[in-house]
């Protein structure tokens, strides 16, 4: 699973992009300009990027309510996303969807989703289309530990096995199902459960890009060989609340601080690539600076972006009326 320096640079940049995008939203959100719900992905960057760096242009992904990371990892335009989150007419979804419903079908990104567990059967459907097309494409769903308790997920897993579809289930255990610990809600464990459907599971360290990348590569190799669905199980944490404004009474005081200081995904990848002499600290800092400038520019233009009007409210309910 050797990756070229260019691939690694790209992966690092994507992770930094997600991190800065989310950290900035955490700062901007209380200011009141951003409306509605915002669920941030900080802390889980290695999972989205580790999986998506393995994907081809014709593959599909489907995301969750915590979808910014998956969208960015799949190549959605950060500026278009920022405009969407600010509810602008020129946002990726014309300001109609917002943070929870970002989608870009041109990128094979079938949408973030506000209904927990709704994405998995849909992704199985996309896998059916991939199989019908016969071009070796796969469909990927991201599923949190919380969503893994929905009947839709069980049904989707069984269906994908029965129909032997090219479907990757990415199980992201961030430790919390909204305001309840994952351990409380999940009987048995995610690996045993998934394997019981006949789906092989590759486990990964969700803080470590290389670990996720390799697990996903193996799972995708299995799927693209025509064996049916596979899964990647990665454990990480979310640095922020279930949604912005969540007081997080259920978390120990220093839990996040400890994660940030020890296993943080960005910290790990920086140490690994500089330690191996692939990039210098300065080279990585330059990437960071470029990303920060991009985020600054995106927020700046989103803040003053065009406001949608009645024409946007009333169109696109149907194709023709």
């Amino acid at each position, binding site marked *: 699973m050797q990756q070229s320096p260019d691939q690694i640079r790209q992966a690092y940049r994507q992770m930094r992009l997600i991190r800065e995008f989310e950290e900035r939203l955490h700062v901007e959100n209380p200011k009141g300009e951003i*409306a*509605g*719900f915002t669920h941030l992905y900080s802390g889980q960057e290695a999972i989205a990027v580790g999986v998506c760096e393995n994907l081809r242009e014709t593959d599909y992904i489907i995301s969750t309510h915590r979808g910014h990371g998956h969208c960015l990892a799949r190549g959605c335009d950060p500026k278009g996303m920022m405009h969407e989150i600010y*509810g*602008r*007419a020129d946002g990726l*979804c014309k*300001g*109609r*969807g*917002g943070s*929870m*419903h970002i989608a870009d079908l041109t990128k094979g990104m079938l949408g973030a*989703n*506000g*209904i*927990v*567990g*709704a994405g998995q059967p849909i992704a199985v459907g996309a896998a059916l289309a991939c199989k019908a097309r016969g071009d070796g494409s796969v469909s990927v769903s991201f599923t949190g530990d*919380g*969503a893994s*308790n*929905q*009947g*839709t997920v069980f049904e989707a897993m069984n269906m994908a096995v029965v129909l032997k579809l090219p479907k990757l289930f990415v199980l992201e255990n961030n430790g*919390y*199902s*909204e*305001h*309840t*610990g*994952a*351990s*409380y*809600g*999940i009987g048995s464990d995610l690996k045993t459960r998934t394997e019981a459907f006949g789906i092989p599971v590759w486990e990964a360290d969700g803080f470590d890009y290389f670990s996720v990348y390799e697990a996903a590569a193996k799972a995708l190799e299995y799927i693209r060989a025509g064996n049916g669905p596979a899964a990647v199980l990665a454990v990480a944490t979310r640095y922020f609340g279930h949604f912005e404004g969540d007081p997080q*009474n*259920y*978390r*120990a*005081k220093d*839990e996040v601080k400890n994660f940030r200081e020890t296993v943080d995904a960005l910290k790990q990848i920086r140490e690994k690539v500089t330690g191996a002499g692939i990039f210098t600290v300065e080279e990585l800092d330059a990437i960071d600076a470029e990303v920060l400038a991009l985020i600054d520019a995106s927020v700046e233009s989103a803040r003053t972006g065009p*406001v*949608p*009007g*009645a024409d*946007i*409210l*009333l169109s696109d*309910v149907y194709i023709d009326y």
Partner: protein
Amino acid sequence: MAELTMRDALNQALHQEMERDPRVIVIGEDVSGGAGGTSGKRDAAGGIFGVTKGLLPRFGEARVIDTPISESAIVGLANGAALAGMRPVAELMFADFVGVSLDQIFNQMAKFRYMFGGKAQTPVVLRMAMGAGMNAAAQHSQTIYPMLSAIPGLKVAVPSTPADAKGMLAAAIRDDDPVIFFEHKALYSRKGDVPEGEYLVPFGEAALLRQGRDVTVVAIGRMVHFAAKAVDKLAAEGITCDLIDMRTTSPIDEEAILESLSQTGRLVVVDESNPICSIASEIASMAATKGFHDLRAPVQKITAPHTPVPFARELERIYVPSPNDIEAAIRAVMKEV
């Protein structure tokens, strides 16, 4: 009488009914919260809108049950427990999540009494937060009481004031039929006088909030507040209205509406739902079939447009019916000779 938010009024009703009847249990995602968390703190959420706060410390884990995110199983759990003698108050967080659990609602709980020869009862209260206005977008903002009111076997409550919220939730818990209980997100923090102690508001009895002679204005949920603003403004100009808060959309207090219509001859119905097959449509149809000879002007329906709920502030502000829309409708029916 104490001034409480609707959130606290609901919380008080839950406390009082759980105190009164040991068969009452509360179930749902994060109704307490914090289970399995690293802080070790339970009751960390008390429901995402804080309505079930304090129940776990008072009544314990056997009666205040946090569940995994499994809406279909949550409603099924409530149904089975109810058939077996409990009185569950289940919470779905957002009304939109009915989509995940619809079979348990409309094929199961609604039909047991009838299908099983009248021998079964399913005293479930299914609480859910509804409504647009907070930019929660298309899958967290809908007002779907028309859809559930259309299902025989379900009772549907849509309180608009803290007092009604308390009295109707207590009545719902004591009702032997399944009750879908809609709480408008934008009303949780609104305050009002709430009777202390036991307080029940019967189902199927509308409230007359303003008295007038010219127009009957019928409203539901948050729209009651908007309608009151419009009605009060017009009263200053000499146009007076009967303002009727439906309170329950199943059963509907037809009598209250038709009687008022017989005195005013003009009807404006305000409903935050989408227009097709809305409660506004139902009331308009009732006026056409049962109050036709009293009508002096076409019925005016004020609803959201036939679109999903949009995200952006500017879009949602157009989407939600406003007091100005209601005022214009009242003026329109007054223009007809």
